[in-house]
């Protein structure tokens, strides 16, 4: 705010031409690459491109600021500085994303074959084997978690939007928000503590406990997204239904929910995508195994994220096949999550009602 008394002729003073920014960026990169090439020639090592680009960008930010300060004055220079910082913040965030996707695909494709999807790890030491048991386990555990959390979450959202008034509704809203922040491992510990006490088995491990833990993480997400969607249903629709003498519960079932079903489906799909990659709670309560197990209620049940972890953490004498399986499972997991995200966006785009906005 103190800058208002800048150069007196701020409006008429010179401005940098439009081509200045791109030219300056290219020149800075070229200069730094040149420096690094010279250093590489002198030292006889490879040219480090990533540091060169990084320092080149830094050079661009600094020279851009100085140049603008000389030509345009301090206020414009600051504006340019912040613009380049903000843009580079976004680009920096892309680096890990691209790097993760690239490494997972390039390392995961070696074992992304038919055997991986048709074998379990029973009696497998070293090469071979697959993740069928883990994929089945993930589908069962996550499916059961969805079966538990969708009715509870949807009914709670209906309560909050259509019925809830007063302190109870406020408390539920607040604690749903707080619940979104429960660490996933605490959810796993809760499921373990609960079932260990109920069944009096201090070493209990079974798939259904994992479903409970995941449901605990999933319910707040379902409530939040369904609540948003139910709120979007215009009141005119409800009132038109009441005016025809339709009871409230039928109005909700036949008018409100069908209108918002696309958004609710999207929210549920995204919630599933969020919990399907959870590792820590399943490591605690579902455990790990090398064998097929279709029974949610008995014995240890492998899941895909835990498969990635155990293949990495407990390899055999020859590490390579274990790591290859871990990467292949990671690739499978990412593909499942991306597919769920894609389905969610498509459902939202295709089936959302036209509300005349």
């Amino acid at each position, binding site marked *: 705010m103190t800058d208002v008394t800048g150069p007196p002729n701020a409006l008429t003073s010179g401005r940098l031409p439009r081509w200045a920014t791109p030219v300056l960026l290219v020149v800075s990169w070229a200069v730094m690459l040149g420096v690094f090439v010279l250093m590489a020639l002198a030292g006889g090592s490879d040219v480090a491109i990533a540091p060169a680009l990084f320092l080149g960008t830094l050079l661009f930010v600094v020279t851009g600021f100085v140049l603008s300060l000389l030509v345009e004055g301090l206020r414009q220079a600051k504006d340019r500085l912040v*613009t380049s910082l903000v843009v580079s913040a976004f680009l920096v965030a892309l680096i890990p994303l691209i790097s*993760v996707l690239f490494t997972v695909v390039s390392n995961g494709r070696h074992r992304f074959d038919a055997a991986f999807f048709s074998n379990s790890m029973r009696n497998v030491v070293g090469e071979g084997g697959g993740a069928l048991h883990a994929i089945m386990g993930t589908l069962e555990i996550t499916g059961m978690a969805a079966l538990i959390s969708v009715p509870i979450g949807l009914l709670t959202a209906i*309560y909050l939007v259509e019925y809830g008034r007063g302190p109870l509704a406020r408390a539920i809203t607040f604690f749903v928000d707080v619940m979104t922040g429960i660490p996933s491992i605490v959810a796993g510990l809760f499921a373990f*503590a609960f079932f260990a006490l109920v069944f009096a088995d201090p070493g209990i491990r079974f798939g259904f406990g994992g479903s409970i833990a995941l449901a605990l993480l999933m319910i707040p997400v379902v409530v939040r997204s369904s609540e948003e969607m139910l709120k979007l249903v215009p009141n005119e629709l409800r009132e038109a239904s009441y005016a025809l003498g339709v009871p409230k519960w039928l109005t909700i079932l036949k008018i409100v929910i069908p209108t918002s079903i696309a958004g609710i489906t999207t929210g549920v799909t995204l919630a599933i995508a969020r919990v399907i990659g959870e590792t820590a709670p399943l490591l605690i309560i579902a455990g790990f195994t090398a064998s097929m197990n279709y029974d949610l209620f008995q014995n240890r049940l492998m899941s895909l994220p835990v498969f990635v972890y155990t293949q990495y953490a407990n390899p055999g004498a020859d590490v390579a096949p274990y790591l290859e399986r871990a990467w292949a499972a990671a690739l499978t*997991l990412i593909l499942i999550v991306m597919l769920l*995200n894609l389905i969610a966006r498509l459902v939202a785009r295709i089936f959302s009602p036209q509300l005349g906005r």
Partner: protein
Amino acid sequence: MRMTTAAASPKATLRPADRIFSGSTLLAGSLILVALAAVAIFLVAQSVPALTADPYELKGSPDSFWAYVGPLAFGSLWAAFLALVMALPLSYGIALFISHYAPRRLAQSLGYVVDLLAAVPSVVFGLWGIKVLAPAVTPLYGWLVENAGWFPLFSPPVSGTGRTILTVAIVLAVMIIPIITAVSREVFLQTPRLHEEAALALGATRWEMIRMAVIPFGRPGMISAAMLGLGRALGETMVVAMVLSPSPKLITIVLTGSQNPSTIAGNIALNFPEAHGIDVNGLIATGLILFAITLVINSVARVVINRRAAFSGAD
């Protein structure tokens, strides 16, 4: 909604189906409160044996339970703090980029791109951290310790594997960027248009407009976004379990050494599968502490963000 309740002055007939339906929604809502209470109750119930037992029976034979959990809590807070320091400027920058700098037509797609980061499962980030990031940063750590070893954060000896708390914090920062960005993007977008246009009309540059109109309006939202990110980083488990090379019972702020404090969540994940007897209760007790810490942080964040909603001039 408000109108329907107000218009119900002539007594509406309550059908049995109405009661069943509203009753079941109420039941579901209360079930959530019951579940949250159950989490606290059962964690406490399973923790009590560890709190009352002879501490020498716990793993590592600490002097007391608090000597056992103290270094772990320090590690959790330290790693989360480091992650927050790295993630905050980036996230605010990204949020501003999407809300005020990017071309309007591109902005939503760019938002999806950042959300993609949130879709990557944590175990995949762990694998990436140990196999890609740790080897990549090891030479940098060597250089730092060699040239800045006098600085307490980088005091030698250097870790040869890159599996240090700084590597963990970098991965954690990447993982909390999406949530901080999402929340602060929302509040930046809610800045009243008139405030922004007034600033621009007075001749402010875009940055001055953001400093005068957007940031003062969004500050509570920015603070609670940071706290939500902190809570997320505190509870993150798999990255710590996979990347860090921990030394239990150690409190140190050195970022690049081979001796690192462990975190509560990572310690549970590493030790729970093989634990038995009183050790299980000990681990659950540390989980209870983690639960309490994140509960407090998240509650404060929500109170801050809800108070802002009450004062919002946007609607």
